[in-house]
């Protein structure tokens, strides 16, 4: 079966932004997402992951290109100024495009 191009948007953010990001993903129309706890270092210092207040989450969302664009737009405008966050986009291929 042929493969279909999709975008993978990865969002690394402070753990306390969990609900905020979840809601945004629903709002822009992502059909699903995956997330897990990570540690990190960045401009806002070490986030060593011992307590929720000092932890990060990594969201991974597969979406069609248009949704990816909206999502990135919204993140940049509304959330980059307020939350510790790193976001990047990459190209992936899936088998069942109808799922995303």
């Amino acid at each position, binding site marked *: 079966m042929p493969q279909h191009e999709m975008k993978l948007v990865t969002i690394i953010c*402070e753990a*306390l*932004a969990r*609900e*905020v990001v979840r809601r945004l993903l629903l709002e822009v129309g992502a059909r699903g997402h995956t997330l897990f*706890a990570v540690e990190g270092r960045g401009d*806002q*210092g*070490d986030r*060593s*992951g*011992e*307590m*929720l*207040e*000092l*932890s990060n989450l990594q969201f991974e969302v597969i979406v069609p290109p248009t949704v990816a664009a909206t999502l990135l737009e919204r993140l940049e*405008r*509304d959330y980059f100024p*307020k*939350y510790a966050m790193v976001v990047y986009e990459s190209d992936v291929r899936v088998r069942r495009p109808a799922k995303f």
Partner: protein
Amino acid sequence: MNIDLLEAIRTNLLAPPALFFALGLVAALVKSDLKFPEPLYVAMTIYLLAAIGFKGGVSMAVAGIATLWLPLLAAMLLGAAIPLWCYPILRRVGGFSPVDAASVAAHYGSVSAVTFTVAVNFLEQVKLPFEPYAAAFLAVMESPAIIVGIVLGKLALARSVASSGASGANGTNRDAGTLGATLKGALHEACFGRSVLLLVGTLLIGFACGKRGLESTAGFFVVPFHGILALFLLELGTVAGRRLGELRKVGLFLLGFGVVMPLLHAAVGVMVGSAAGLSAGGSMLLGTLAASASYIAAPAAMRLSLPEANPTLSLTAALAITFPFNVMLGIPLCFAFTEWWFAAT
């Protein structure tokens, strides 16, 4: 009196809680790879809150509501009032932005369960009796200050949007336009956030099942309690120690604020307690609660409802300044003040 104070400090510093906390600080300072996994941190938090709440609830059942309402109301009002004077101090003396001032004020009005527990431990050591239902103060003091802080911050944001006119980005418009929605969210978080829910929920459970429920579960909620507290303080010591580096960033004012305000709040708390008819021990616990700053309930609520505030300021102040200060020195100082106040009045 002086001798008493030194003795109180010695007693506190040579008990397991302070010593384990100090070991954690040392581990962080020598950059040891000792680190508690997050699930263990969460597990210990859940255990401590459930045990405190449950035992407090059983004691409430024993004491009866009639005895309780006045001190509880006093504790709640005290918690709600603290941000009201912290905010202007942070704004004018500290030069903080409105949202940052509101957020820090909320942290200092809310409370720290671990600080409370170390104080209980201390009272047991010095054999000063206290109202066993004191955990209920802890439960009712977590949320009010958070709500007050969020309202302060949101009002300030609304004012700044209004004064700067239609500031363009509809993001800010939305923020200002939905003060009501935000407050609903904040209220939800303040009432159903994990620490409040656990504490209030287990308090009600303890109240519902009374002494009999405690009998069957004392082997878990009572027997290992003090040891688990010690281990938890070891962990908090490593966390606080690793944040000491942030002290440079937050500035001298906050350092002073984080030490002076707890002393002031402790005194106010003790006086309010004694006025509400509490024993010396109970007043001392209310003082400690007033002096403590929240680093669980408040940060979660702030990041959700007032994300414009800089979390580094409030978390560093609560966790790396006020918490160590209280656990090491604040508690014996509060005790000495209580002794003096109750002797004087």
